[in-house]
């Protein structure tokens, strides 16, 4: 059915799933066994991962979900190994038929009359029992078009079949929060920030495409998440990105990183969205599997929330945006291997190409359509394109929809219906519009020069019917594809090496012996790739566009003014903006902590993001996440995933910050080696008056420096152990969520009362790195004295800590706030001078610090 692609890329050919396609399995001996050892024999057949599924070459599959339900974007399913009796030769012949006789289309009628025709379901990643279930649902064999739809909608990426059973905790343990306006099954959650304003935000991965084609992979990652935000009715107002690569000095890192940064900048800058923050981390575990997680945040009025549903028989289904081309057809099945090797070049064409200009038109056009109330339901087209949008819109509506596939505007007229259904062409949206509004809808699209076409309508039936050349090629209950995918309870157990890893604590590592070694260590950390100045990267992003950026990297969190323009007069949702309302966002993760203890690791990532948001004076409100893990078919990885989800759900409950949505990215591994489990957590905070925001910069000569929080001797997974010894072992810092809440309350109140001149959270690199960053940011030094063990005081990574500069005269007030909140506080020094000085030990001139901090990335990246 996809016979027009190069032979090697054709999953319906024996050579596809043959030696080449099957090879990766060789590196995963365990993977071919699990169904034999499946514990849940009591589960209904459809919920068991069968051999073919388990044997599938891996692809990064990402599943997108919101608090209780999960919306899907997709990559097509991975090509599977040859299943028993799938009639491969016939299947191949079947595929060739289609190519040689383009007119010949598999219709529902043919499917009824020719029930025995072998189908290449295994090559599309469907297991024997999944295929049988489709036949049971339809009461016949699926047509090739229906097979295409089920194969992408039931893929790991779309059906979250491995993660679903664990993700349910986010809803089950969701804290009561009046702030959550939408969390249920929409493209992204929506949070109330007051004064009639709402915010929607979400983070998604584009890891494997970014490794294969760094520029386009990263660019389309930004484009995809931005469309999710538009689909909620919001104006996108900023993006952030969390990036992880192999060692900074690795040749391949110099290939991938500059391309990814250029792609994120090229798309985001051209789209006119400020990039206000993120992460850049280097670790050998990401060497052949970089992580590119993109976040977008949008702002809207309560009344403007849009839903992804297609109710109302007679309403028209309109496809608008770019034409449909062969981009990324079966993207995932071509990118099916987690083992990137010489084949990568051959795989390149399967990465979609982005057009930020069209996306910009799509944003303005969609917002104008929303403003005029012309949209009944809306869905963005990401991966799985039309298959995903039609089945989800129909399933969420009354169920019935009729689509004329011939009417889909094509960039490549030779596309077959199956390819049109699977195409991942970018910059497309699908809207459901009342007949009376269609004319005006098309006028507005024309004004923005956005192509728009009516391709179908909502019917009062319960099935999704698609025609091609006048014949019915799809007739399915949409819910069976969109919502009723397989659910697996994959086996999990702690990785075998975990006990020895945890037993190998950082305590055995030799520490700096004297003042000079302490001084060297301060500079060493400040210059290490993970802690060095990131300007080389951030200066390639526009942080000013839209004119509402109050804080951006390298500050603890990005901070945006929300109500620059007062709400419209006819807005009933609340009083006009006071000019001070804003939102803060931080995105954090720590794969080393999570490797040592995934439950704690996920909580520590949340803790840091929560602390970063509070450090600007904002009140943490809601959470999004991107869960990057290896193969769920590896019980050790599945255990890491289960523990991380449990840890995050428990911590969100404790902190009272609900998960509004997120994304799961599996199969991040090379061969049988998985990345460190890397949950990346985004926290959204609300700022009542951004004019009172806190910066990390030391700019007030003579201000007292106070250290908030308790410092313990904690070096497991620390930046110090990583930089100085390349050591990973022991246990991560102790999680203390109550202390985080207490610290946040002091920071938020301190900001509101205007008693703080600066605040900076302590995390990677501890107090030493925090002081380095605050001094260089403000251009002022500081003189401190530390009573305890200077090594522990400077480099320990205990949580729930921050360093603040207090306005002269306000020390007493801060002490009172801390006492009331139960936050330990002590004066460690004073801001001033042109050096970072630790009494009785060392002094480092800012010029020397700046040199060490700033040269690292340019030296590596050129």
């Amino acid at each position: 059915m996809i016979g027009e692609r190069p032979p090697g890329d054709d999953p319906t050919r024996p050579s596809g799933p043959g030696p080449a396609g099957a090879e990766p399995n060789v590196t995963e001996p365990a993977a071919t066994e699990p169904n034999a050892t499946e514990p849940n024999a009591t589960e209904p057949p459809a919920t068991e991962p069968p051999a073919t599924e388990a044997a599938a070459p891996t692809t990064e599959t990402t599943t997108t979900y919101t608090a209780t339900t999960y919306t899907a974007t997709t990559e097509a399913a991975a090509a599977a190994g040859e299943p028993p009796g799938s009639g491969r030769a016939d299947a191949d012949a079947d595929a060739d038929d289609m190519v040689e006789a383009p007119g010949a289309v598999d219709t529902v009628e043919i499917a009824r009359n020719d029930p025995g025709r072998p189908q290449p379901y295994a090559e599309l990643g469907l297991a024997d029992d999944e295929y049988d279930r489709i036949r049971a649902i339809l009461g016949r064999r699926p047509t090739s078009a229906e097979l295409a739809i089920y194969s992408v909608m039931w893929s790991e990426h779309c059906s979250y079949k491995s993660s679903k059973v664990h993700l349910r905790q986010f809803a089950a343990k969701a804290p009561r929060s009046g702030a959550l306006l939408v969390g249920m099954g929409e493209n992204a959650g929506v949070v109330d920030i007051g004064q009639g304003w709402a915010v929607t935000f979400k983070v998604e991965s584009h890891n494997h495409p970014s490794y294969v084609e760094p520029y386009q992979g990263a660019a389309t990652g930004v484009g995809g998440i931005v469309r999710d935000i538009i689909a909620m009715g919001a104006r996108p107002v900023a993006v952030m990105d969390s990036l992880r690569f192999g060692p900074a000095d690795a040749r391949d890192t110099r290939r991938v990183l500059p391309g990814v940064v250029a792609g994120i900048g090229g798309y985001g800058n051209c789209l006119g969205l400020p990039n206000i923050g993120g992460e850049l981390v280097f670790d050998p575990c990401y060497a052949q599997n970089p992580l590119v997680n993109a976040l977008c945040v949008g702002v809207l009025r309560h009344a403007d929330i849009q839903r992804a549903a297609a109710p109302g028989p007679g309403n028209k289904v309109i496809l608008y945006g770019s034409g449909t081309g062969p981009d990324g057809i079966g993207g995932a099945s071509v990118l099916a291997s987690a083992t990137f090797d010489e084949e990568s070049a051959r795989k390149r064409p399967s990465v979609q190409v982005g057009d930020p200009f069209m996306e910009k038109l799509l944003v303005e056009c969609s917002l104008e359509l929303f403003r005029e109330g012309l949209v009944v339901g809306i869905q963005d087209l990401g991966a799985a394109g039309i298959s995903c949008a039609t089945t989800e819109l129909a399933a969420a509506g009354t169920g019935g929809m009729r689509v004329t596939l011939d009417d889909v505007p094509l960039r490549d007229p030779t596309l077959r219906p199956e390819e049109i259904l699977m195409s991942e062409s970018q910059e497309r949206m699908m809207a459901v519009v009342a007949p009376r509004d269609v004319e005006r809808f098309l006028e507005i699209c024309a004004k923005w020069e956005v192509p728009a076409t009516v391709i179908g309508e909502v019917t009062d039936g319960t099935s999704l019917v698609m025609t091609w050349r006048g014949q019915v090629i799809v007739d399915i209950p949409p819910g069976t594809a969109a919502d009723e995918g397989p659910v697996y309870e994959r086996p999990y157990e702690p990785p075998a090496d975990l006990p020895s890893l945890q037993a190998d604590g950082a305590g055995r590592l030799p520490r700096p012996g004297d003042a000079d070694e302490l001084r060297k260590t301060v500079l060493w950390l400040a210059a290490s790739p993970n802690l060095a100045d990131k300007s080389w990267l951030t200066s390639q992003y526009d942080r000013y566009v839209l004119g509402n950026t109050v804080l951006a990297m390298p500050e603890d969190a990005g901070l945006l003014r929300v109500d620059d323009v007062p709400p419209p007069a006819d807005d009933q949702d609340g009083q006009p903006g006071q000019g001070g309302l804003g939102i803060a966002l931080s995105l954090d993760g720590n794969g080393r902590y999570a490797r040592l203890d995934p439950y704690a690791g996920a909580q520590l990532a949340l803790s840091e993001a929560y602390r970063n948001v509070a450090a600007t004076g904002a009140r943490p409100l809601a959470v999004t996440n991107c869960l990057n893990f290896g193969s769920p078919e590896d019980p050790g990885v599945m255990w890491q995933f289960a523990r991380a989800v449990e840890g995050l759900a428990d911590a969100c409950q404790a902190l009272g910050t609900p998960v509004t949505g997120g994304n799961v990215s599996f199969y991040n591994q090379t061969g049988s080696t998985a990345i460190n489990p890397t949950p990346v957590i985004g926290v959204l905070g609300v700022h009542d008056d951004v004019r009172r925001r806190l910066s990390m910069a030391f700019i007030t000569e003579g201000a007292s420096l106070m250290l908030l929080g308790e410092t313990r001797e904690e070096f497991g997974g620390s930046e110090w152990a990583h930089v100085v010894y390349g050591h990973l072992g022991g246990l991560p810092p102790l999680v203390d969520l109550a202390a985080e809440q207490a610290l946040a309350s002091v920071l938020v109140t301190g900001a509101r009362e205007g008693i703080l001149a600066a605040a900076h959270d302590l995390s990677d690199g501890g107090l030493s790195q925090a002081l380095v960053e605050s001094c260089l940011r403000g251009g002022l030094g500081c003189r401190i004295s530390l009573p305890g063990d200077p090594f522990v005081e400077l480099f320990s990574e205990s949580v729930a800590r921050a360093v603040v500069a207090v306005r002269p005269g306000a020390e007493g007030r801060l002490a009172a706030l801390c006492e009331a909140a139960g936050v330990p506080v002590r004066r460690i020094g004073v801001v001033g001078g042109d050096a970072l000085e630790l009494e009785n030990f060392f002094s480092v001139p800012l010029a020397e610090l700046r040199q060490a901090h700033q040269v690292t990335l340019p030296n590596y990246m050129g």
Partner: protein
Amino acid sequence: MSSRVGIVTFPGSLDDRDAARAVRLADAEPVPLWHGDRDLQGVDAVVLPGGFSYGDYLRCGAIARFAPIMESLVPAAEDGLPVLGICNGFQILCESHLLPGALTRNTGLHFVCRDQRIRIENTETAWTREYAAGQELVIPIKNIDGCYNATEETLAELETGGRIVARYVDVNPNGSLHDIAGVCNEAGNVVGLMPHPEHAVETLTGPTTDGLGFFASIGAWLAGDLVAAS
């Protein structure tokens, strides 16, 4: 009476809202203009904002130059209508031949976003009257095609004619010849600027408020026009 300043939105314009905000903060009235219209709505001045008009496909500003609104704007500018082109707007003015030279890919080949120090070289233009000669400002710059290029004769003309409005100081972020950050036409009513003054109008969101002067200058210029006319 506050002057009415038109702000043109092309497909792909990005800083049009920012330009409107800056005009408002300078006590003038922003008037949205659409690329597809020919009517300038009797505005007293026009800003071509930054962005990626038509995706900067083909060549920066090369397509916008043919927009219907430009059919009215070009002759109006030649008749003395004050026009400020910022970044992509500068590129459009060069493509329209209202200003000499061209903006090409930064010598570093990267997009550059930084707080840039510039020096005002000409305070006689419609957009720089609020500044003192030689005054230094810190204003954001953000571009990937900001390298000003022109022939030796043109550069000589610009230098001798005092038509270099602003120069980069300390760092030349994009390799522009003669450190040129902005130029004007002979009459001084048309100014092209690569840095973004509209992003330096509020202490809350900008590095400085140094950019306000560009938008405040227009009032004085128009007042001068009225005097001349009377």
